């Protein structure tokens, strides 16, 4: 019975048990001996029910005491506390944010049931090169693949478009997707309201809307079903609303219409405009399906050699629909934050070690005054936990604030929300990491204090060199330097890459150009004369505005509309395939080139007199002329395009239609009045560009008024400057760079602090030795040099492995470097110089302190 009671006492803190355990047992034993037999049973029961709350109360009292003590000591060491909290916050925050994004984009399954069996399907080169959808599908090829393949549970096709919506709130321009009836059911997501498409014919005039549109346009009205709306002038009925997190095929789509086919649609196999999505049958692997599709594509190219000779299949998991650059960028980011996490742990360890050294005496005194090892350990754990919890909380706030910065790293091609939520698992992991570091190194001094005989530490003077602990600190500082060098070099390389990209001449002058989108709805504007009247009335009024230098309409802005690639045939020349030798085309109004700042080489501009009744003309880019008529004067030459023969009347400079980092096809510009009858509305000029020299805000409202006066039903969208369009080209790069840059700066700062801390400690430890040296006649400058040499040695030991790791990392992210070599000497030199500068700055104060040591002051202190 007594043994049982002794076991019960283990609920108490060891210090309490040591002090009173024997007495308590004695008391219990006596009570037990004095009690009657039934009294004994009650005694035991009472002991159990009593000791538990008492033990908790004792623990609680100690915790309160430790907390008070911690607040007092940390308040005294405010610099240490703040640094530790900040370092933890940075490590936890940066890692949580970066890994949340990476996990969201790369790892987590798409928000559809059984997402692994969802695949996308397009036409592509026979070689299977490239990523994502290389070429769109023609209805005939889609029909054949769908009927002949046996790997799919279901397959459907879809076409992206845009339309003006009238109904509900303000008229709006919306991204829409036409889907065959299979598409929404095969994704496996049920509508929150109503139904999805049954058969395409019944639902020809039905639409399903997104949750976002339901709220923004119809105020979340539950009676929205069977409401009539107007899309580009045609009446539609709302039959369903999809759930909030449903995106397909990407974030841009806000409503879905039914995709229907006419028999004529299946006639031309080169008329490619669709994408397909499918769900694999259970038990069919991705590779099996791909093999089947490849054999089908081979069969179709034998059956239809005229059209399908070069046609293969692009087949990929829905999850993988992102450019390799996004993937590399996220992996690079993950690597960078991992560097920072290591650095954080090293810095924390260093901080705690430094503090441990400083507290050695304090702890020894407390131990000498009777505090048990267990009490000291407990106190230090409380302190470490408090620091990590505070740092962790700040880190969570930091992560929450920085996730939006990362959101431009989420590829727009995936059916995902633009902003990931904070990932709690990642958060927990980062916290555990830092907490373990804090605990591990926070405890070290307590363990030492327990191990050492009390008098040693009390007797200890500054004569001891520090020994092993200092070597550990030196290694930690070296790790910090290594990590910061890696971060410096990789972000340096990326900065160089961004500079390179930004230095590319887009071929036009983006400054001082305002752009906006006024898509003309069909069939209201089916009549080309009516369209041209709209352009002329708007342009005349806009040009009359103060500060406006020029204005024009075009089918699509460069870098925004990157497609519009069509086939060109030149009489007397071999026909090239549109896949390998297409040209980009735009319909424009006069003065487009002057407005955009595209240089004129020869000939004339498109003019108001280039009507549909006159000769069909074209202005072409220099590379267009060079491709078809090398070394000749292109003016007056003719070519066939969209069943029309056009005569070249002018030559302009090339522009980067596809974007700064991509090769663009040669360009041609055709008069707005010569859009062939029957061409869909998407080809109409609709982007208004205005070159101006004044205040933008005033201009925007004036232009809005003008357009409203010309056509009150005309929506205006995408008001932005051409500079913003060009800047968008480097947005993801710059976002990544911002993140990396901040990480690198933090890394440099932390390792600088690390070097400083270590050297400052060395100087204080060696003060006596330095004093003696000085007393014996050593030059002060030599003592200073000695400290500097220590700092540089630490830095160099870290820099060398850092350079090697950085080179390896840079080779891995070659795709992001835009031609900057992974061993770029300028970047490496700058990074090393920065690291050395940091080491210099870190050694400066300790060196000065060493020089200022006077023999007398040291000896007096002894």
């Amino acid at each position: 019975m007594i043994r049982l009671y002794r076991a019960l006492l283990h609920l108490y803190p060891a210090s309490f048990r040591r002090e009173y355990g024997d007495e308590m047992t004695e008391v219990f034993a006596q009570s037990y001996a004095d009690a009657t037999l039934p009294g004994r049973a009650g005694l035991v029961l009472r002991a159990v029910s009593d000791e538990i709350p008492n033990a908790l109360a004792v623990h609680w009292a100690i915790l309160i005491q430790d907390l008070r003590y911690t607040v007092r000591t940390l308040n005294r060491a405010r610099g240490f506390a703040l640094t530790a909290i900040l370092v933890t916050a940075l490590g936890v925050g940066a890692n949580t944010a970066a890994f949340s994004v990476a996990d969201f984009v790369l790892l987590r399954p798409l928000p559809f049931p059984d997402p692994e069996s969802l695949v996308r399907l397009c036409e592509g080169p026979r070689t299977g090169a490239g990523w994502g959808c290389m070429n769109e599908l023609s209805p005939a090829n889609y029909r054949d693949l769908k009927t002949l393949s046996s790997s799919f549970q279901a397959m459907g096709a879809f076409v992206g478009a845009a339309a003006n919506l009238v109904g509900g709130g303000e008229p709006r321009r919306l991204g829409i997707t036409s889907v065959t009836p299979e598409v929404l059911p095969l994704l496996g997501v049920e509508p929150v309201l109503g139904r999805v498409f049954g058969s395409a014919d019944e639902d020809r005039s039905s639409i399903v809307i997104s949750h976002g549109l339901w709220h923004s346009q119809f105020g979340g009205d539950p009676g929205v079903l069977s409401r009539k709306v107007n899309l580009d002038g045609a009446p539609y009925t709302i039959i369903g609303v999809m759930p909030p997190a449903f995106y397909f095929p990407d974030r841009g789509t806000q409503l879905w219409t039914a995709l229907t086919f006419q028999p004529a649609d299946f006639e031309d196999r080169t008329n490619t405009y669709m994408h397909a999505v499918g769900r694999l049958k259970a038990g069919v692997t991705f590779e099996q399906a791909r093999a089947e599709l490849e054999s089908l594509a081979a069969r179709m190219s034998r059956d239809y050699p005229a059209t399908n000779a070069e046609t293969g299949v692009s087949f990929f998991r829905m999850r993988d629909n992102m450019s390799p650059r996004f993937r590399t960028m996220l992996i690079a980011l993950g690597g960078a934050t991992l560097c920072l996490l290591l650095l954080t742990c090293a810095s924390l360890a260093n901080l705690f070690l430094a503090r441990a050294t400083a507290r050695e005496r304090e702890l020894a005194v407390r131990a000498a005054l009777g505090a048990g090892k267990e009490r000291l350990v407990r106190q230090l754990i409380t302190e470490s936990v408090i620091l990590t919890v505070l740092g962790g909380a700040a880190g969570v706030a930091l992560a929450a604030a920085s996730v939006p910065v990362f959101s431009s790293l989420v590829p727009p091609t995936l059916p995902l929300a633009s902003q990931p939520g904070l990932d709690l698992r990642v958060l927990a992991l980062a916290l555990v990491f830092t907490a373990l570091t804090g605990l591990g190194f926070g405890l070290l001094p307590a363990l030492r204090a327990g191990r050492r005989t009390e008098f040693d530490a009390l007797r200890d003077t500054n004569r001891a060199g520090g020994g092993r602990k200092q070597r550990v600190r030196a290694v930690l500082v070296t790790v910090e330097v290594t990590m910061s060098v890696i971060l410096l070099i990789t972000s340096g390389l990326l900065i160089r890459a961004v500079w390179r990209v930004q230095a590319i001449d887009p071929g036009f002058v983006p400054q001082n150009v305002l752009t906006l989108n006024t898509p003309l709805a069909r069939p209201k504007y089916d009549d080309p004369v009516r369209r041209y009247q709209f352009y002329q009335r708007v342009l005349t009024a806009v040009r009359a505005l103060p500060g406006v230098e020029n204005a024009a309409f075009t089918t699509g802005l460069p870098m925004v509309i990157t497609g519009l690639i069509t086939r060109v045939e030149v009489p007397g020349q071999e026909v090239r395939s549109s896949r390998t030798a297409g040209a980009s085309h735009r319909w424009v109004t006069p003065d487009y080139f002057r407005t955009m700042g595209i240089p004129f080489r020869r000939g004339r501009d498109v003019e108001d007199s280039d009507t549909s009744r006159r000769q069909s003309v074209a202005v072409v880019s220099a590379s267009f002329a060079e491709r078809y008529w090398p070394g000749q004067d292109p003016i007056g030459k003719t070519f066939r395009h969209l069943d029309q023969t056009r005569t070249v009347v002018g030559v302009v400079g090339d522009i980067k239609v596809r974007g700064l980092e991509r090769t663009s096809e040669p360009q041609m510009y055709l008069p707005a009045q010569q859009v062939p009858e029957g061409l869909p509305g998407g080809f109409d000029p609709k982007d208004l560009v205005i070159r101006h020299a004044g205040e933008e805000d005033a201009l925007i409202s004036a232009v809005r008024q003008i357009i409203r006066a010309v056509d009150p039903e005309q929506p205006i969208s995408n008001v932005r400057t051409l500079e913003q369009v060009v800047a968008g080209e480097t947005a993801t790069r710059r976002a990544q760079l911002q993140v990396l840059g901040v990480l690198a700066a933090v890394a440099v700062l932390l390792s600088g602090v690390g070097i400083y801390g270590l050297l400052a400690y060395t100087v204080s430890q060696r003060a006596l030795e330095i004093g003696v040296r000085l007393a014996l006649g050593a030059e002060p400058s030599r003592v200073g040099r000695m400290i500097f040499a220590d700092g540089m040695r630490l830095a160099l030991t870290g820099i060398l492995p850092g350079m090697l790791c950085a080179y390896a990392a840079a080779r891995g992210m070659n795709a992001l470097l835009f031609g900057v070599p992974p061993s770029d000497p300028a970047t490496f030199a700058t990074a090393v110089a920065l690291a050395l500068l940091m080491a210099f700055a870190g050694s400066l104060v300790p060196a000065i302190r060493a020089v200022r040591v006077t023999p007398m002051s040291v000896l007096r202190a002894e």
Partner: protein
Amino acid sequence: MPVKDDDVDALLPLPAAAFHILLALSAGDCHGYGIIQDVEARTSGALRLSPGTLYRTIQRLLEQGLIEEPRKLSRARVDPRRRDYRITPFGAAVARAETRRLTELVRLARNVWRGAPEPS
């Protein structure tokens, strides 16, 4: 050391266990088991302190300086299972102050019940 009223007041009201321990020690130095027996006898068996409550309270009273260990001060070898505790002058002051506080409380209560039948 002079006893300051502020220090005394800061400790009031005393937990019941603490008050009883101080009362027990007011009669003279005593060890743990003796205190339990004393308290039990004084309250006619109504309050029997468990060892846990006793020593948790003793620890607090020692920290607050209300009691002390006389033998430890005399550096004699002590049987760790039977340490005596002694009330300090400060502890006595606190115990008296608590008594006054309780008396005052009882007086107030009596005023309320005067004329009314005694609560059973």
